[in-house]
């Protein structure tokens, strides 16, 4: 029974690892305090030592700075478009050239970061919170909780994205912004994360160290939050980081349908959607917004990997 084996070992790891490494007095000390919350302290200490984390953090910082202060990076107006420059090649001050409408691609890529990153990150956070909570409760408590929550999840799964988007955006016709787009994407996106979380929680909750935690008198909610979730985090993190990218692309779909961000807000998604027209004649127009999107997704995937490794006590020991 490999599974039982695994959980036993995990359990031992958790409580006896410090003894094996007696010289590390600090670890012993922490373990004696008996608070599993120290998992996070351990994770942070571990994280700081990983180059992957620093690369990812630097990239994310760069993206965030671009999103927050686009003016630092370009003096061009992303919304000034002159048809005479349509698809013109790069020139001094316009390193990426011009798009179909004659707008400066570099300026649009820089200014597009704010809306796109905000949509991606906020929608991911919302989806992880809602989907994670629903999935965790359904998976951990089971029974009626599971039946009701999972069937609600099934219903939301089946709601067509376009339909939900048009109906919700209609309610905010006159003041569409990043938050309304996040609302649409969250409505549509949380069921997937709920399913993933539920599955992960179910496969962890019967592990022996969970039984032990319960036996030691931890309440069910505490057990779920402190013992189950950290061990079920890997698939959640992976799904969330990939979803982050797909959410930014989803904003493109919304823009394309005319129910995304209003035209005065520049975003990578809208520019990717518009590049469709130039696909046969000048596919390179697509390259910059899609490249910026890829770089952002890459930084979050790397960060996710680093965090996951840090959370995993087995991987940490090596």
């Amino acid at each position: 029974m490999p599974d039982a084996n695994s959980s036993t070992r995990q359990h031992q790891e958790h409580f006896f690892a410090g003894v094996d490494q007696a010289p590390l007095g600090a670890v012993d000390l922490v373990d004696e305090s008996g608070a599993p919350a120290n998992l996070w302290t351990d994770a942070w200490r571990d994280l700081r030592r990983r180059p992957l984390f620093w690369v990812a953090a630097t990239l994310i910082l760069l993206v965030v700075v671009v999103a927050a202060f686009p003016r630092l990076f370009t003096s061009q107006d992303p919304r000034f478009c002159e048809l005479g420059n349509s698809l013109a090649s790069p020139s001094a001050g316009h390193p990426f050239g011009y798009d179909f409408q004659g707008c400066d691609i570099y300026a649009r890529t820089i200014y597009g970061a704010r809306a796109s990153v905000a949509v991606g990150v906020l929608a991911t956070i919302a989806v992880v919170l809602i989907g994670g909570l629903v999935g965790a409760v359904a998976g951990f408590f089971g029974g009626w909780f599971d039946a009701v929550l999972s069937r609600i999840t099934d219903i939301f799964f089946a709601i067509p994205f376009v339909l939900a988007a048009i109906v919700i955006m209609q309610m905010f016709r006159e003041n569409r912004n990043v938050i309304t787009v996040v609302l649409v994407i969250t409505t549509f996106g949380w069921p997937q994360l709920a399913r993933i979380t539920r599955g992960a929680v179910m496969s962890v909750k019967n592990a022996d160290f969970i039984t032990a935690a319960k036996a030691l008198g931890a309440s069910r909610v505490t057990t779920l939050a402190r013992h189950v979730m950290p061990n079920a985090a890997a698939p959640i993190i992976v799904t969330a980081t990939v979803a982050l990218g797909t959410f930014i692309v989803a904003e493109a779909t919304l823009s394309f349908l005319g129910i995304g961000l209003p035209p005065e807000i520049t975003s990578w998604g809208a520019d990717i959607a518009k590049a469709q027209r130039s696909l046969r004649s000048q596919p390179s127009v697509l390259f910059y917004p899609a490249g910026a999107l890829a770089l952002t997704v890459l930084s979050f995937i790397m960060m996710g990997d680093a965090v996951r490794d840090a959370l995993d006590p087995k991987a940490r020991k090596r």
Partner: protein
Amino acid sequence: MAWYIGRRLLQMVPVFLGATLLIYAMVFALPGDPVLALGGDRGLNPAVAEQIRAEFNLDKPFIVQYLLYLQGILTFDFGTTFSGRSVRDVMAEAFPVTFQLAVMALVFEAVLGVAAGLVAGLRKGRLFDATVLLVSLVVIAVPTFVIGFVLQFALGVQWRLLPPTVGGDVSFRTLLMPALVLGAVSLAYVLRLTRTSVAENLSADFVRTATAKGLSRPRVVTVHVLRNSLIPVITFLGADLGTLMGGAIVTEGIFNINGVGGTLYRAIQQGQAPTVVSLTTVLVVVYIVANLFVDLLYAALDPRIRYA
């Protein structure tokens, strides 16, 4: 177990009522009068518009429209489209090809995703792992319409290896390219999920124990590592079947496939509630059955998970 499956199937009844009500309400809440759109830019004679509204019950309050629709369903009458076709016929045309396409896409993303994800997880941090990461990034960042267009143009038009569109000729050969395109984004999820789970389980003690017991590496990898890594992957795949069936709008457009995604999209645009709700209801059933199947697989993969 049988009791569990029976209970799950019984739960379909409230889900059916909830989903149909919710989605009918959403179509009802769509902005604009769908009948006026029938006249195009020219508009429609108001008296004719009035009669068409009456014919399709669009002049009645929402709850009456919904109940009339439910009443029809009891006699397997799913309503009619504005063009006078029975929704049942429309569904009978769209679902078989869509199901075939979705299953092909699912098999593609499952086989390639799990295989490549497994290797990447086993060799974490090496060149292959980096390549897999790059592929995931490409399918995430490059929109489906680009992947579809490039494949169609290269394989269909330039080299003429495969037919560029499907149309009325539905076969394995014609659906091959669309299935690859449709499964591309999901492939990123399967790759990442498999790779991460494999890497995680690889360092688990039971693997070291199994290796120490002298089991061969292939056996350790397939029986111990992979089996324990599959739960998140099959969870994703189970939910993805329905998404692939209902959300293939772009792929169906590129390859001219008369499937559920496009039909649903057009029906939403035209405000045709019976078509939207009927198609979606079938999708709900697909989600429920696929998720039930996945839940049963959990128990098979992980004996600690039991249902009563």
